[in-house]
Protein backbone atom coordinates (compact mmCIF):
# COMPACT_ATOMS: atom_id res chain seq x y z
CA UNK A 1 0.00 0.00 0.00
CA UNK A 2 2.76 2.44 0.90
CA UNK A 3 4.43 1.49 -2.40
CA UNK A 4 1.57 2.98 -4.43
CA UNK A 5 1.48 5.97 -2.15
CA UNK A 6 5.17 6.60 -2.80
CA UNK A 7 4.59 6.27 -6.53
CA UNK A 8 1.77 8.79 -6.43
CA UNK A 9 3.82 11.26 -4.42
CA UNK A 10 6.63 10.84 -6.91
CA UNK A 11 4.34 11.80 -9.81
CA UNK A 12 3.10 14.82 -7.86
CA UNK A 13 6.71 15.78 -7.22
CA UNK A 14 7.48 15.70 -10.96
CA UNK A 15 4.53 17.92 -11.83
CA UNK A 16 5.44 20.31 -8.99
CA UNK A 17 9.03 20.53 -10.27
CA UNK A 18 7.98 21.28 -13.85
CA UNK A 19 5.57 23.99 -12.71
CA UNK A 20 8.10 25.67 -10.45
CA UNK A 21 10.92 25.49 -12.99
CA UNK A 22 8.70 27.33 -15.43
CA UNK A 23 7.70 29.85 -12.79
CA UNK A 24 11.24 30.82 -11.86
CA UNK A 25 13.02 30.45 -15.20
CA UNK A 26 10.60 32.36 -17.39
CA UNK A 27 10.81 36.07 -17.95
CA UNK A 28 8.10 38.36 -16.65
CA UNK A 29 6.32 40.93 -18.71
CA UNK A 30 3.72 43.47 -17.77
CA UNK A 31 0.19 42.14 -17.78
CA UNK A 32 -2.25 43.99 -19.94
CA UNK A 33 -5.94 43.49 -20.60
CA UNK A 34 -5.56 41.82 -24.00
CA UNK A 35 -3.56 39.02 -22.45
CA UNK A 36 -6.24 38.15 -19.91
CA UNK A 37 -9.36 37.90 -22.07
CA UNK A 38 -10.27 34.56 -23.69
CA UNK A 39 -9.01 33.83 -27.17
CA UNK A 40 -11.05 35.06 -30.09
CA UNK A 41 -9.73 35.60 -33.59
CA UNK A 42 -8.85 39.26 -33.46
CA UNK A 43 -11.93 40.57 -31.63
CA UNK A 44 -13.04 40.89 -28.07
CA UNK A 45 -15.46 38.04 -27.28
CA UNK A 46 -19.06 38.97 -28.02
CA UNK A 47 -21.09 35.97 -26.88
CA UNK A 48 -21.05 34.21 -23.51
CA UNK A 49 -18.95 31.10 -23.20
CA UNK A 50 -21.73 28.73 -22.19
CA UNK A 51 -23.70 28.48 -25.38
CA UNK A 52 -26.73 26.21 -25.66
CA UNK A 53 -25.46 23.01 -27.22
CA UNK A 54 -27.20 20.68 -29.62
CA UNK A 55 -29.30 17.82 -28.29
CA UNK A 56 -27.57 14.75 -29.87
CA UNK A 57 -24.50 15.24 -27.66
CA UNK A 58 -26.69 15.01 -24.58
CA UNK A 59 -28.61 12.00 -25.91
CA UNK A 60 -25.38 10.13 -26.66
CA UNK A 61 -24.23 10.59 -23.07
CA UNK A 62 -27.61 9.32 -21.85
CA UNK A 63 -27.25 6.23 -24.05
CA UNK A 64 -23.78 5.71 -22.64
CA UNK A 65 -25.18 5.57 -19.10
CA UNK A 66 -27.34 2.55 -19.95
CA UNK A 67 -24.45 0.79 -21.64
CA UNK A 68 -22.09 1.64 -18.80
CA UNK A 69 -24.36 -0.05 -16.29
CA UNK A 70 -24.46 -3.12 -18.54
CA UNK A 71 -20.66 -3.08 -18.66
CA UNK A 72 -20.42 -3.11 -14.88
CA UNK A 73 -22.76 -6.09 -14.88
CA UNK A 74 -20.51 -7.86 -17.39
CA UNK A 75 -17.29 -7.61 -15.34
CA UNK A 76 -18.15 -10.21 -12.61
CA UNK A 77 -19.40 -12.60 -15.30
CA UNK A 78 -15.79 -13.51 -16.11
CA UNK A 79 -15.35 -14.94 -12.65
CA UNK A 80 -18.59 -16.93 -13.00
CA UNK A 81 -17.26 -18.50 -16.17
CA UNK A 82 -14.92 -20.60 -14.05
CA UNK A 83 -17.45 -21.90 -11.55
CA UNK A 84 -20.93 -22.12 -13.04
CA UNK A 85 -21.92 -24.94 -15.39
CA UNK A 86 -22.53 -24.66 -19.12
CA UNK A 87 -26.31 -24.49 -19.14
CA UNK A 88 -26.62 -21.66 -16.61
CA UNK A 89 -23.77 -19.74 -18.24
CA UNK A 90 -25.29 -20.05 -21.72
CA UNK A 91 -28.66 -18.83 -20.45
CA UNK A 92 -27.08 -15.89 -18.59
CA UNK A 93 -24.83 -14.75 -21.43
CA UNK A 94 -27.44 -15.15 -24.15
CA UNK A 95 -30.10 -13.33 -22.16
CA UNK A 96 -27.68 -10.53 -21.38
CA UNK A 97 -26.43 -10.03 -24.92
CA UNK A 98 -30.00 -10.31 -26.21
CA UNK A 99 -30.97 -7.49 -23.83
CA UNK A 100 -28.06 -5.34 -25.01
CA UNK A 101 -28.93 -5.92 -28.66
CA UNK A 102 -32.62 -5.22 -28.18
CA UNK A 103 -31.96 -1.99 -26.29
CA UNK A 104 -29.58 -0.86 -29.01
CA UNK A 105 -31.97 -1.76 -31.82
CA UNK A 106 -34.90 -0.14 -29.99
CA UNK A 107 -32.95 3.09 -29.65
CA UNK A 108 -32.08 2.87 -33.31
CA UNK A 109 -35.72 2.33 -34.34
CA UNK A 110 -36.95 5.18 -32.12
CA UNK A 111 -34.43 7.42 -33.85
CA UNK A 112 -32.22 8.46 -30.94
CA UNK A 113 -29.10 7.49 -32.83
CA UNK A 114 -29.80 9.67 -35.85
CA UNK A 115 -27.62 12.73 -35.71
CA UNK A 116 -30.19 15.11 -37.21
CA UNK A 117 -33.83 14.91 -36.15
Amino acid at each position, binding site marked *: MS*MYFMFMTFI*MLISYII*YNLNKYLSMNKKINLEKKIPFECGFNPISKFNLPFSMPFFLISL*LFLIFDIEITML*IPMIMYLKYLNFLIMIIIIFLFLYMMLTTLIMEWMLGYLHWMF
Partner: protein
Amino acid sequence: MFIFSYVLLMIMVMLSVAFLTLFERKILSYMQCRKGPNKLLFKGLFQPFSDMLKLIFKEMFYLSLNKMFYLGPMFMFYISCLLWLVYPWIYMNNNMMYMMVYMLFIMSLNVYPILIISWISMNNYSMMGLMRLISQMISFEVLIFLIFFMFLMIIEDFKFIKLFIYQMDSFFIIMYFPLYFMLLISLLIDLNRVPFDLIEGESELVSGFNLEYYSSLFIYIFLSEYMNLLFMSMILTIFFFGFYYWTIMFNLFYLMNLFLMVMIRGVLARIRYDCLMYMCWMEMLVLMLFYLIYFYLIKEFIMLLNF
Protein backbone atom coordinates in the same frame (compact mmCIF):
# COMPACT_ATOMS: atom_id res chain seq x y z
CA MET B 1 13.95 -0.68 -3.92
CA PHE B 2 10.30 -0.62 -4.96
CA ILE B 3 10.25 3.08 -5.48
CA PHE B 4 13.50 2.89 -7.42
CA SER B 5 11.91 0.69 -10.07
CA TYR B 6 8.97 3.07 -10.45
CA VAL B 7 11.26 6.08 -10.67
CA LEU B 8 13.23 4.29 -13.38
CA LEU B 9 10.00 3.46 -15.23
CA MET B 10 8.76 7.05 -15.11
CA ILE B 11 12.09 8.48 -16.26
CA MET B 12 12.26 6.04 -19.16
CA VAL B 13 8.69 6.84 -20.17
CA MET B 14 9.49 10.57 -20.17
CA LEU B 15 12.58 9.99 -22.29
CA SER B 16 10.63 7.85 -24.75
CA VAL B 17 7.95 10.55 -25.00
CA ALA B 18 10.68 13.05 -25.83
CA PHE B 19 12.04 10.86 -28.61
CA LEU B 20 8.56 9.87 -29.79
CA THR B 21 7.91 13.47 -30.78
CA LEU B 22 11.08 13.47 -32.86
CA PHE B 23 10.09 10.11 -34.35
CA GLU B 24 6.68 11.43 -35.34
CA ARG B 25 8.09 14.57 -36.90
CA LYS B 26 10.65 12.57 -38.86
CA ILE B 27 8.06 10.09 -40.17
CA LEU B 28 5.61 12.81 -41.16
CA SER B 29 8.37 14.76 -42.89
CA TYR B 30 9.59 11.76 -44.88
CA MET B 31 6.01 11.00 -45.93
CA GLN B 32 5.79 14.50 -47.36
CA CYS B 33 9.19 14.18 -49.15
CA ARG B 34 11.15 16.54 -46.89
CA LYS B 35 13.76 16.01 -44.22
CA GLY B 36 12.34 17.28 -40.96
CA PRO B 37 14.58 18.30 -38.04
CA ASN B 38 18.15 17.41 -39.04
CA LYS B 39 20.42 20.22 -37.86
CA LEU B 40 20.65 20.40 -34.08
CA LEU B 41 23.88 18.89 -32.67
CA PHE B 42 23.94 15.38 -34.15
CA LYS B 43 21.45 15.00 -37.04
CA GLY B 44 18.72 16.74 -35.04
CA LEU B 45 18.78 14.15 -32.31
CA PHE B 46 18.50 16.73 -29.53
CA GLN B 47 15.53 18.56 -31.03
CA PRO B 48 12.97 17.34 -28.41
CA PHE B 49 15.09 18.63 -25.51
CA SER B 50 15.31 22.07 -27.04
CA ASP B 51 11.54 22.00 -27.64
CA MET B 52 11.04 21.17 -23.98
CA LEU B 53 13.39 23.95 -22.89
CA LYS B 54 11.49 26.37 -25.12
CA LEU B 55 8.23 25.47 -23.41
CA ILE B 56 9.79 25.83 -19.95
CA PHE B 57 11.27 29.26 -20.69
CA LYS B 58 7.93 30.62 -21.96
CA GLU B 59 6.16 33.23 -19.92
CA MET B 60 4.01 32.07 -17.01
CA PHE B 61 1.25 34.28 -15.72
CA TYR B 62 -1.98 33.78 -13.82
CA LEU B 63 -4.73 33.73 -16.40
CA SER B 64 -7.42 32.50 -14.07
CA LEU B 65 -7.76 32.81 -10.31
CA ASN B 66 -9.36 29.40 -10.11
CA LYS B 67 -7.07 26.66 -8.80
CA MET B 68 -8.60 24.08 -11.15
CA PHE B 69 -7.14 25.93 -14.11
CA TYR B 70 -3.69 24.85 -12.92
CA LEU B 71 -4.64 21.53 -11.35
CA GLY B 72 -6.56 20.22 -14.37
CA PRO B 73 -3.55 19.54 -16.64
CA MET B 74 -1.62 18.16 -13.67
CA PHE B 75 -4.51 15.77 -13.04
CA MET B 76 -4.37 14.68 -16.68
CA PHE B 77 -0.65 13.98 -16.37
CA TYR B 78 -1.23 12.16 -13.08
CA ILE B 79 -3.83 9.83 -14.61
CA SER B 80 -1.68 8.85 -17.55
CA CYS B 81 1.19 8.13 -15.15
CA LEU B 82 -1.11 5.87 -13.13
CA LEU B 83 -1.98 4.07 -16.37
CA TRP B 84 1.67 3.11 -16.77
CA LEU B 85 1.57 1.28 -13.44
CA VAL B 86 0.15 -1.80 -15.17
CA TYR B 87 3.06 -2.11 -17.61
CA PRO B 88 4.22 -5.74 -17.31
CA TRP B 89 8.01 -5.53 -17.18
CA ILE B 90 10.68 -7.42 -15.36
CA TYR B 91 10.87 -5.19 -12.28
CA MET B 92 7.11 -4.97 -11.84
CA ASN B 93 6.41 -5.43 -8.14
CA ASN B 94 2.65 -5.12 -8.03
CA ASN B 95 0.71 -8.26 -8.81
CA MET B 96 -2.78 -6.94 -8.68
CA MET B 97 -5.53 -9.51 -8.97
CA TYR B 98 -7.78 -7.31 -11.10
CA MET B 99 -5.22 -5.57 -13.30
CA MET B 100 -7.49 -5.21 -16.35
CA VAL B 101 -10.30 -3.72 -14.28
CA TYR B 102 -7.85 -1.18 -12.89
CA MET B 103 -6.70 -0.34 -16.43
CA LEU B 104 -10.26 0.11 -17.70
CA PHE B 105 -11.07 2.27 -14.70
CA ILE B 106 -8.14 4.59 -15.35
CA MET B 107 -8.88 4.71 -19.09
CA SER B 108 -12.47 5.77 -18.45
CA LEU B 109 -11.22 8.37 -15.96
CA ASN B 110 -9.37 10.07 -18.82
CA VAL B 111 -12.47 12.11 -19.74
CA TYR B 112 -12.65 14.13 -16.52
CA PRO B 113 -9.44 16.21 -16.71
CA ILE B 114 -10.38 17.25 -20.24
CA LEU B 115 -13.80 18.29 -18.96
CA ILE B 116 -12.16 20.33 -16.17
CA ILE B 117 -9.67 21.93 -18.55
CA SER B 118 -12.13 23.06 -21.18
CA TRP B 119 -14.85 24.11 -18.75
CA ILE B 120 -12.54 26.26 -16.66
CA SER B 121 -10.86 28.05 -19.59
CA MET B 122 -14.17 29.88 -20.32
CA ASN B 123 -13.87 29.93 -24.07
CA ASN B 124 -16.34 29.24 -26.86
CA TYR B 125 -13.95 27.13 -28.90
CA SER B 126 -12.84 24.93 -26.04
CA MET B 127 -16.48 24.38 -25.05
CA MET B 128 -17.34 23.20 -28.55
CA GLY B 129 -14.27 20.99 -28.59
CA LEU B 130 -15.28 19.58 -25.20
CA MET B 131 -18.73 18.52 -26.38
CA ARG B 132 -17.37 16.77 -29.43
CA LEU B 133 -14.56 15.10 -27.54
CA ILE B 134 -16.63 13.80 -24.65
CA SER B 135 -19.35 12.30 -26.81
CA GLN B 136 -16.80 10.60 -29.05
CA MET B 137 -14.66 9.28 -26.19
CA ILE B 138 -17.68 8.06 -24.23
CA SER B 139 -19.26 6.19 -27.12
CA PHE B 140 -16.07 4.34 -27.93
CA GLU B 141 -15.50 3.49 -24.27
CA VAL B 142 -18.29 0.91 -24.63
CA LEU B 143 -16.67 -0.60 -27.68
CA ILE B 144 -13.22 -0.80 -26.05
CA PHE B 145 -14.68 -2.59 -23.09
CA LEU B 146 -16.56 -5.11 -25.24
CA ILE B 147 -13.34 -5.88 -27.13
CA PHE B 148 -11.48 -6.37 -23.85
CA PHE B 149 -14.31 -8.55 -22.62
CA MET B 150 -13.75 -10.96 -25.51
CA PHE B 151 -10.18 -11.53 -24.34
CA LEU B 152 -11.17 -11.77 -20.71
CA MET B 153 -13.78 -14.35 -21.67
CA ILE B 154 -11.18 -16.53 -23.34
CA ILE B 155 -8.51 -16.27 -20.64
CA GLU B 156 -11.02 -16.23 -17.74
CA ASP B 157 -8.81 -13.99 -15.66
CA PHE B 158 -7.91 -10.34 -15.12
CA LYS B 159 -4.13 -10.61 -15.16
CA PHE B 160 -1.81 -9.73 -18.02
CA ILE B 161 0.34 -12.78 -17.35
CA LYS B 162 -2.53 -15.06 -18.37
CA LEU B 163 -2.60 -13.33 -21.77
CA PHE B 164 1.04 -14.31 -22.37
CA ILE B 165 0.39 -17.88 -21.23
CA TYR B 166 -2.63 -18.34 -23.50
CA GLN B 167 -0.69 -17.07 -26.51
CA MET B 168 2.22 -19.48 -26.18
CA ASP B 169 1.23 -21.54 -29.22
CA SER B 170 -0.74 -19.22 -31.44
CA PHE B 171 -1.21 -15.47 -31.24
CA PHE B 172 -4.60 -13.93 -30.81
CA ILE B 173 -4.14 -11.97 -34.03
CA ILE B 174 -4.80 -15.18 -35.97
CA MET B 175 -7.97 -15.93 -34.08
CA TYR B 176 -9.20 -12.36 -33.66
CA PHE B 177 -7.94 -10.74 -36.85
CA PRO B 178 -10.86 -8.28 -37.47
CA LEU B 179 -10.69 -7.24 -33.83
CA TYR B 180 -7.18 -5.89 -34.31
CA PHE B 181 -8.45 -3.16 -36.62
CA MET B 182 -11.49 -2.46 -34.47
CA LEU B 183 -9.32 -2.01 -31.39
CA LEU B 184 -6.90 0.14 -33.39
CA ILE B 185 -9.75 2.41 -34.53
CA SER B 186 -11.27 2.72 -31.08
CA LEU B 187 -7.90 3.42 -29.45
CA LEU B 188 -7.14 6.10 -32.06
CA ILE B 189 -10.46 7.73 -31.18
CA ASP B 190 -9.65 7.48 -27.49
CA LEU B 191 -6.34 9.25 -28.18
CA ASN B 192 -7.88 11.88 -30.53
CA ARG B 193 -5.35 11.18 -33.24
CA VAL B 194 -5.64 12.16 -36.83
CA PRO B 195 -8.35 10.33 -38.71
CA PHE B 196 -10.58 11.08 -35.75
CA ASP B 197 -9.16 14.32 -34.35
CA LEU B 198 -12.50 16.08 -34.63
CA ILE B 199 -11.87 18.30 -31.61
CA GLU B 200 -9.44 20.40 -33.61
CA GLY B 201 -10.79 19.31 -36.97
CA GLU B 202 -12.50 22.35 -38.31
CA SER B 203 -10.95 25.73 -38.80
CA GLU B 204 -13.35 27.42 -36.39
CA LEU B 205 -12.38 25.18 -33.45
CA VAL B 206 -8.89 26.56 -33.28
CA SER B 207 -7.08 23.95 -31.23
CA GLY B 208 -9.80 22.15 -29.31
CA PHE B 209 -9.80 21.89 -25.54
CA ASN B 210 -6.21 23.02 -24.90
CA LEU B 211 -6.65 26.43 -26.48
CA GLU B 212 -6.03 28.60 -23.42
CA TYR B 213 -3.03 26.66 -22.16
CA TYR B 214 0.56 27.80 -22.40
CA SER B 215 4.12 27.02 -21.29
CA SER B 216 4.33 24.47 -18.46
CA LEU B 217 0.59 23.87 -18.32
CA PHE B 218 0.77 22.78 -21.94
CA ILE B 219 3.66 20.42 -21.12
CA TYR B 220 1.35 18.31 -18.95
CA ILE B 221 -1.28 17.96 -21.68
CA PHE B 222 1.36 17.19 -24.28
CA LEU B 223 3.15 14.63 -22.08
CA SER B 224 -0.03 12.83 -21.10
CA GLU B 225 -1.23 12.55 -24.72
CA TYR B 226 2.02 10.99 -25.88
CA MET B 227 2.28 8.75 -22.82
CA ASN B 228 -1.19 7.43 -23.62
CA LEU B 229 -0.11 6.84 -27.23
CA LEU B 230 2.84 4.74 -26.04
CA PHE B 231 0.63 2.84 -23.63
CA MET B 232 -2.01 2.06 -26.24
CA SER B 233 0.53 0.61 -28.65
CA MET B 234 1.78 -1.49 -25.71
CA ILE B 235 -1.76 -2.77 -25.18
CA LEU B 236 -2.09 -3.70 -28.86
CA THR B 237 1.16 -5.65 -28.65
CA ILE B 238 0.23 -7.52 -25.50
CA PHE B 239 -3.27 -8.40 -26.61
CA PHE B 240 -2.56 -9.53 -30.14
CA PHE B 241 1.12 -10.48 -30.39
CA GLY B 242 1.68 -12.44 -27.25
CA PHE B 243 5.45 -12.42 -27.10
CA TYR B 244 6.67 -12.76 -23.58
CA TYR B 245 7.62 -9.40 -22.16
CA TRP B 246 11.24 -8.28 -21.98
CA THR B 247 12.14 -10.05 -25.23
CA ILE B 248 13.45 -8.55 -28.46
CA MET B 249 10.43 -9.64 -30.51
CA PHE B 250 8.09 -7.92 -28.05
CA ASN B 251 9.97 -4.66 -28.50
CA LEU B 252 10.05 -5.03 -32.30
CA PHE B 253 6.29 -5.56 -32.51
CA TYR B 254 5.80 -2.74 -30.01
CA LEU B 255 7.70 -0.44 -32.36
CA MET B 256 5.68 -1.76 -35.31
CA ASN B 257 2.39 -0.86 -33.64
CA LEU B 258 3.78 2.53 -32.65
CA PHE B 259 4.93 3.14 -36.21
CA LEU B 260 1.48 2.18 -37.52
CA MET B 261 -0.31 4.55 -35.15
CA VAL B 262 2.02 7.41 -36.04
CA MET B 263 2.03 6.67 -39.78
CA ILE B 264 -1.79 6.77 -40.02
CA ARG B 265 -1.50 10.49 -39.32
CA GLY B 266 0.29 11.04 -42.60
CA VAL B 267 -2.00 8.87 -44.71
CA LEU B 268 -5.65 9.24 -43.88
CA ALA B 269 -8.03 12.17 -44.16
CA ARG B 270 -10.40 12.90 -41.32
CA ILE B 271 -14.01 11.79 -41.35
CA ARG B 272 -17.22 13.68 -40.69
CA TYR B 273 -18.58 13.78 -37.15
CA ASP B 274 -21.97 12.19 -37.80
CA CYS B 275 -20.26 9.44 -39.81
CA LEU B 276 -18.13 8.72 -36.73
CA MET B 277 -21.19 8.41 -34.50
CA TYR B 278 -22.99 6.17 -37.00
CA MET B 279 -19.86 4.06 -37.24
CA CYS B 280 -19.79 3.60 -33.50
CA TRP B 281 -23.41 2.95 -32.60
CA MET B 282 -24.89 1.41 -35.72
CA GLU B 283 -22.06 -0.56 -37.26
CA MET B 284 -19.29 -1.44 -34.81
CA LEU B 285 -21.39 -1.99 -31.69
CA VAL B 286 -23.97 -4.24 -33.38
CA LEU B 287 -21.16 -6.17 -35.07
CA MET B 288 -19.34 -6.46 -31.76
CA LEU B 289 -22.37 -7.88 -29.93
CA PHE B 290 -22.95 -10.56 -32.56
CA TYR B 291 -19.25 -11.32 -32.57
CA LEU B 292 -19.34 -11.77 -28.80
CA ILE B 293 -22.10 -14.40 -29.06
CA TYR B 294 -20.14 -16.15 -31.80
CA PHE B 295 -16.96 -16.30 -29.75
CA TYR B 296 -18.81 -17.46 -26.67
CA LEU B 297 -20.16 -20.38 -28.70
CA ILE B 298 -16.64 -21.18 -29.95
CA LYS B 299 -15.36 -21.14 -26.38
CA GLU B 300 -18.13 -23.49 -25.24
CA PHE B 301 -17.36 -25.78 -28.15
CA ILE B 302 -13.66 -25.92 -27.22
CA MET B 303 -14.62 -26.66 -23.60
CA LEU B 304 -16.95 -29.44 -24.74
CA LEU B 305 -14.19 -30.99 -26.84
CA ASN B 306 -11.95 -31.19 -23.81
CA PHE B 307 -14.36 -33.44 -21.94
